[in-house]
C-alpha cells in the first residue's frame, strides 16, 4: 500500500557484495542499462564491496559483476530474470 500512497521520486539504496578476493566489482541493473562501467563498487576495509545508489520507486532488477561474472546478491529480497534470460536479483524501492 505504501508504495502507491507515497510516490517518492528517489531513494538511496546501499548494495553490499561480499567478494573479498575479487579485483573489481560493479553494480549492473535496469537502472543503468546493465552497463558495467556505470556503477563501480568500492572495496571497504573488511574487503566487501559497497555502493549507494539513488533509485526510483518501484522494483529493480540488478546483479553484481564480480571480475566480469554476473553474480546474484544472496541478500536480495527476490529473484527474476533479465532480458537475456539470466537469473538476477530484485530490489523493491518504496
Amino acid at each position, binding site marked *: 500500500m505504501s508504495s502507491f500512497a507515497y510516490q517518492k521520486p528517489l531513494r538511496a539504496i546501499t548494495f553490499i557484495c561480499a567478494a573479498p578476493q575479487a579485483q573489481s566489482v560493479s553494480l549492473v541493473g535496469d537502472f543503468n542499462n546493465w552497463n558495467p562501467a556505470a556503477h563501480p563498487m568500492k572495496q571497504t576495509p573488511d574487503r566487501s564491496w559497497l555502493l549507494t545508489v539513488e533509485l526510483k520507486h518501484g522494483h529493480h532488477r540488478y546483479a553484481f559483476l564480480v571480475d566480469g561474472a554476473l553474480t546474484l546478491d544472496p541478500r536480495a529480497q*527476490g529473484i527474476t530474470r533479465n532480458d537475456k534470460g539470466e537469473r538476477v536479483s530484485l530490489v523493491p524501492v518504496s
Partner: protein
Amino acid sequence: MRKPSASRRAPQPKPKKANPAKAPRIHPVIIYPFKQSADYSDLQALYELVNRLDRDKKRYARPITVMDRKTHFSMTEDAAFHDFRQNTVAKCSDILDAWCVDTCQMWYSGLGAAFEKGSPDDVYWLIPGDFNYGSPVGQEVLGDIHDLPEIIMELDQDLCIGEIATDHSNPKHLIDTYGTFALLYNWFPAEAQEIRQFTEQPRSEFFAVRHSFLREALAQRWYAYEQTVVLLLQAILGGKRISRFFVGHISDLPEGRESLAAAMQQVERTERVLKSAWRERNHSRSGWIEQYRALENQSGQVRRAAITILQHLLG
C-alpha cells in the same frame, strides 16, 4: 408548474464516450481460513489491508473472499463469526461461498471468479487468510505483500511467488524437502531444477499471476490440489517469466498446521497431480506407457521414503 407527462421529453441516451483503454487492475483474492480461530485479531489485521485495497478502486478490483461452506456451517451458532463476516468481510469484499474439497479448490474458485471479471492486462493476487497477520511480523508482511502483483506489472512477469521464512523443522518445509521436490525430481527432473532455482517453497500460498497465464492455467488444470506446483510446472514448461519475492517472517496459524496424516495426504496428492501432468504431456509419444510405469515405480519408492521420514519428524 409541472408539465403534463405527454409533453415530457423522453430521456435522451447519452452519447457514448470513446472507450479509453482500461488501466490494468489488481484482483485480490482472499482465502478465508478453513478453521475459524476464536481470536479474530489476525483476520482483523488482514481485513484492514483488504479494506484499504477496496478503497483504492483505480488500482484494485473489488476483492473477493472465498469462504468454504463447511466453515460457514460449522459456525452457524457463532454470533462473533456472523458479525465478522457481515460487518468486516462483506463490507470490503465480495464473499464467494463455495463447497471445496480443499484450500486449492478455494483458490480455483476464487481466481476463476476474479478472472471472469478481469481484463487482459490485469493481475490476480492470492492472499491466504490463515497466517498470523496480527503479530508485529505479520503487520510487516501485510505492508509488503503488495509487491507480488506490482512485480508482475512493473517487470512484465507472468508469475510471482512469495516466500516466507521457515525453519527446517516447519512441517511445510519438511513436506517440500522430502515430498514435493523428491517427487518433482522423479517426474520432471529438468523442470524441478529450474523451479528450485527460483523457490524452495513450490507450494507457497502467496503468489500473483498475470491474466494470460491464469487463463491457460485455469483451462489446463485437471486436479484442484497442489496448484502452486502445477502453476510452476506450467510456467517452466511454457517458458513463462517467473519471479520470487521474500514477503517476510510470517507463520501459519496453529489451526491450519499439518499433522502427520495431513502431511501424508499432501505428499500423496502431489504424486497424483504429477502423474497426471506427466501423462498429459507424454501420452502421445510412442512407448510412453513403459516409461510411465518405470517412473511410477520409482515414484512409489520416493513417496514411501518421504512418508517414512515425515513419520519420524512429525509423528
